[in-house]
Structures are given as structure tokens and as C-alpha cells.
């Protein structure tokens, strides 16, 4: 058959197969290029960090405290600080963020005020983290009297990632088909029973993914903590409510800004520890996601 065949009454087609195939190939190539650039950057970064940091990474490094001499330096205070902060951030953000999201998605009417509220929450996710630091300084350190403590830092970070958690949770809740809600209501479920029994289980994997990604963001933050009292040189295990504290990114910042090359290398070693923490957190996210999704087939 002629590709541009014309029938007496029918419309003319110009399939231009060659051109369509070429444009398809070009698009495919562009996608490959994009992923290639990303992978290459990541690999270079990893290579640089690993070659510099790995030789310094040993048990003494993990269990030691910072020192004037790079060879004697360790990251235990920072590691413990980061873990403590992660726990406090998780405990505060998880219930509040999800409750706020449930309110906005399942209870709030579609009023102008609520839409405004939601837009504002989304905007908060884009506020520079240093601003949160200043706010945390005013609210937690001064007004609430927590001082320059680990709790002040953790609460500041909780505020920082709250919008991310809320937005992710709202998205996950909205993605649950209306039929799921109707199915529960039709059995005589109250609104809360519908949310708890039908909507939340369906949204849980998405919510947990959002929460854990937000936690990763909190663990990686340094800037706001510098304002609410994190030190770069802490030689003791921090306690939540008093005294100085530090976390891994702040420790990295402290070492990386020293002129000596060896300090920059142990900064790289600390970065490896952060990356491992992130990897564990993401692995946890995947495990939880798979577990929570085991009954879901959309």
C-alpha cells in the first residue's frame, strides 16, 4: 500500500514515519544524556570522597572525639548528636505532620481559607533553611528557654521538614481513590473509622516514604543548627537539654574549613558516615514501603 494513499472521500494522511522515528530517537538520547550526567557527577563525588576518606575510616574514628590532631580525631559526639536529633525530629514531625495532612485532606472543607493554608504550607517548604535557624533561635532558644541545646536544634529541624512531610502526606492521601472511602462509609464507618481503616492503610507507603525522605533532609542540614547552637568542636557525648552539641554535617563543615589537608580528609571520612546513614535510612524506607504495600494493588 502507498503510505500516502488518498481515498475519494477520506482525509489525507502523511504518516512521515521516518521523521517520527527520528524524533523518538532524539528524545530517547536526551533522556540517556541527562541520566548520564547525573550518574557521572555522583560517581565523581563518591570517588573523591571515598579515595580521601576511606583510609581514615576506622573504629577509632567512629568511637573517638574531635582533637587538635587529625589522626586522633573521631566523630562519636557528632554521630550520637545526629542520631538523637533524628529520633527527636521523627517523634515530633511524624504525628504532627500526618495529623495536619489528615485534617487538610480528609476533614477540611474545600474553602478559600483552607486552600490558602495549603498553598502557604507548600511555600514554607521553599523557605531557606537559615531562616528556620533564625526562627528557632527566637522561639526555642530564647522564648521557650531551651537554650543552645540539642532539643532546640531538633525542634528547629522538625519545623524545617514539617512542610515537606505535610505536602508528601497530603499527596499520598489524595492519591487514595474515592472508592476506598465510599467502601468504608457504605459499611457504616464513621469518618475517623474510614480514615483509619481504609484511607490510611492505602496511603501509608506514600506517607512513610515522604517522612523518611524528609528525615534524610533533616539529618543532612547544617546551616540552621549553626544558629541554634551546634558547635564544631565537641569532645563529649551531648545530652539533649544542656550543654553543647554537634551533628555530622556541622562536624564536616568544621573540619572542611580548616586549612590542613588531613582535616579535609577526615571531613571526607565523616561524609562517608553520613552517606552510610542516609543509605540505611533509605533502605529502611524501602523495607517499610514494601511491607506496607503488600496488600495494595492499584
Amino acid at each position, binding site marked *: 500500500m502507498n503510505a500516502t494513499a488518498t481515498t475519494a472521500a477520506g482525509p489525507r494522511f502523511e504518516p512521515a514515519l521516518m521523521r517520527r522515528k527520528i524524533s523518538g530517537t532524539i528524545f530517547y538520547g536526551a533522556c540517556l544524556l541527562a541520566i548520564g550526567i547525573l550518574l557521572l557527577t555522583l560517581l565523581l563525588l563518591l570517588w573523591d570522597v571515598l579515595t580521601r576518606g576511606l583510609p581514615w575510616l576506622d573504629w577509632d574514628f567512629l568511637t573517638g572525639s574531635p582533637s587538635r590532631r587529625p589522626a586522633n580525631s573521631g566523630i562519636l559526639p557528632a554521630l550520637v548528636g545526629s542520631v538523637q536529633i533524628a529520633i527527636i525530629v521523627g517523634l515530633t514531625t511524624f504525628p504532627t505532620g500526618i495529623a495536619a495532612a489528615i485534617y487538610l485532606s480528609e476533614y477540611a472543607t474545600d474553602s478559600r481559607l483552607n486552600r490558602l493554608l495549603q498553598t502557604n504550607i507548600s511555600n514554607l517548604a521553599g523557605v531557606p533553611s537559615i531562616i528556620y535557624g533564625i526562627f528557632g533561635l527566637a522561639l526555642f532558644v530564647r522564648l521557650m528557654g531551651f537554650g543552645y541545646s540539642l532539643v532546640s536544634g531538633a525542634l528547629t529541624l522538625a519545623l524545617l521538614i514539617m512542610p515537606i512531610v505535610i505536602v508528601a502526606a497530603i499527596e499520598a492521601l489524595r492519591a487514595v481513590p474515592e472508592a476506598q472511602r*465510599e467502601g468504608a462509609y457504605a459499611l*457504616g464507618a464513621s469518618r475517623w473509622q474510614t480514615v483509619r481503616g481504609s484511607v490510611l492503610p492505602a496511603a501509608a507507603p506514600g506517607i512513610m516514604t515522604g517522612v523518611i525522605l524528609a528525615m534524610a533532609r533533616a539529618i543532612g542540614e547544617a546551616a540552621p543548627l549553626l544558629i541554634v547552637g551546634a558547635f564544631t568542636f565537641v569532645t563529649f557525648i551531648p545530652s539533649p537539654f544542656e550543654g553543647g552539641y554537634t551533628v555530622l554535617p556541622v562536624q564536616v563543615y568544621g573540619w572542611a574549613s580548616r586549612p590542613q589537608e588531613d582535616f579535609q580528609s577526615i571531613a571526607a571520612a565523616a561524609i562517608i558516615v553520613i552517606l552510610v546513614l542516609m543509605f540505611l535510612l533509605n533502605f529502611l524506607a524501602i523495607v517499610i514501603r514494601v511491607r506496607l504495600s503488600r*496488600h495494595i494493588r492499584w
Partner: protein
Amino acid sequence: MIAPVRDPAAAEIDTSDQAGGDGRLDAATPRVRIDPTLTTNAGPRPADRRTALSLQHVSCFYGSFRAVNDISLDVAANEITALIGPSGCGKSTLLRTINRMNDLVPGYRTEGHLLFEGEDLYGPRADPVAIRRRVGMVFQKPNPFPKSIFDNVAFGPRINGYKGDVAELVEQSLRRAALWNEVKDKMKESGMSLSGGQQQRLCIARAIATAPEVILMDEPCSALDPRATLQIEDLMAELKRDYTIVIVTHNMQQAARASDVTAFMTMGDDRGGFLVEMAPTVEIFTNPKDRLTEDYVSGRFG
């Protein structure tokens, strides 16, 4: 197992034997005839028919739009009542008014009275949550919860404070829904892992488990293949001994095969749906009183 599944092709004959046997209604067919003995459920009608649901001058509004216009009809207990009519005529709206599902739609409003066993479903003391346990619903698209098969059925009893043995009730409900034999060895698997027809029977089991008096079905077979459709229809015939069933269907063969009474609705110029005719199913399909009904059931419209 449930009653033996009939051959889908044979069931088509119900309405097509006068139309040249090609299994389809066409405009040339003067009138659809069904042999009453071929219909599944239209047995002799008991003399002691009791009204379970009575709709009195019911109108339904979405905001200012009147979707259903002044419908009065009675639904008899332990019968299958089919609502048929063209798309958009308000069948589903009317159905969802019965268990107050439309309360969930912002701007929705009902006028008139819906009496369920003598109580006004929209009376000041009527509680939609309480009503929905007694008036169950099966939806167009199977919507099992993302839970195990067991938990799907157990959900309703649990939230309604069932005091007996939940496991026993789950088994009993699944048996009644003719699904037990297919799922008894995989109660912990996801309800969503079942086939479409099984999912719909799971949803029926789920509805039965709260011991409703009425089961509303909103085009329950439109997402299913013919074999699964016939399984559901056979199941309905079983269930009507214990439940009153109201079914919305687009499929006229289904209304003809599976229902005792058929109500034909259509919409007016203002797109508001109204009731044209309601009569025993055999009469609607063989001897409709209204010209609109005749056109619709003979395939000349819709």
C-alpha cells in the same frame, strides 16, 4: 459452589430470540419479548409482599441542579428491584440517596421522604452511619480495601462492634457470597489480588457481614466479564431470600434476567430524572405501558 453457572451465550437468548438470534437488540425489533420461564428470578410473586422501602416524592439536588424529580416508588422486601434508564437519568443518585451516601457530596440535598421499615431515613433522628450498616452497598467497580481477604470482610463487623466470633462471621459471609471455596486457603492474601469477579463477590461478602436488611448494587457487573456477571446474578437470586436488593443496571438483559420488578427512569428536558414506569419485570419487557419504556427496552433509545 453456587448454583451452576449458566452459559452466557444462552442467557443472551432471553431477549434476542425474537430479534433474529444475533444476540443484540436493534431498532428493527418491534418489541422485546422474554419468555418468563427463562428469567432467573421472576418466579411466582408471593402474595404477602411487604414494603421494605418507600420513596415518597423524592427529589435530589446537587446545588441548584435537580438530578431526580419527584419520584415515588415502593421496594418490596426480599425482591430484586432493578432501576434502568439512560446514562445521567439519576438512577445512581437515587440509589445513593437510599443509604445516604450522597450526604458526602458537598451541596447535595434531598427532598421528600424515604421510609425504611417505616422510619424516615432523612428524619431528624436518622443517623447516616447507623443507616449504612442496615443498608449495604456494592459499587460499580470492585473496591476491596488494601487489606487481607479476611480483614476486608471483618472490617464492617469490627467497626460496628460485632460481639460474636468474627472469624465465624467472615467464613459465613464468604460462603453466602459464594467465594469461600476459592479463598479459604488464602485468607491472608490481599483482597486486591483476586480477579475482578472474585473482588466483587468479596465486596458482597463484606456488605453481608454487617447484617444489612437491604443491599444496594450500583451497576455491580459493569466491570466484569459475562461469566463473572452470571455468577453475581446467580448470587443475587440466592441472596434475595434474606435481603432486599435494589440494583442499578445499564444492561437490560441483566434487568430482564435478574430482577423481579423493574423501574424505568429517564430524564426530562431539564436533565432532571423522573420515573416513567415501574412494574413486574416481565411486564416492563413484554408489555410496557409507556411509549418511552417501550422505546428504551426495545433498543430504539439509549
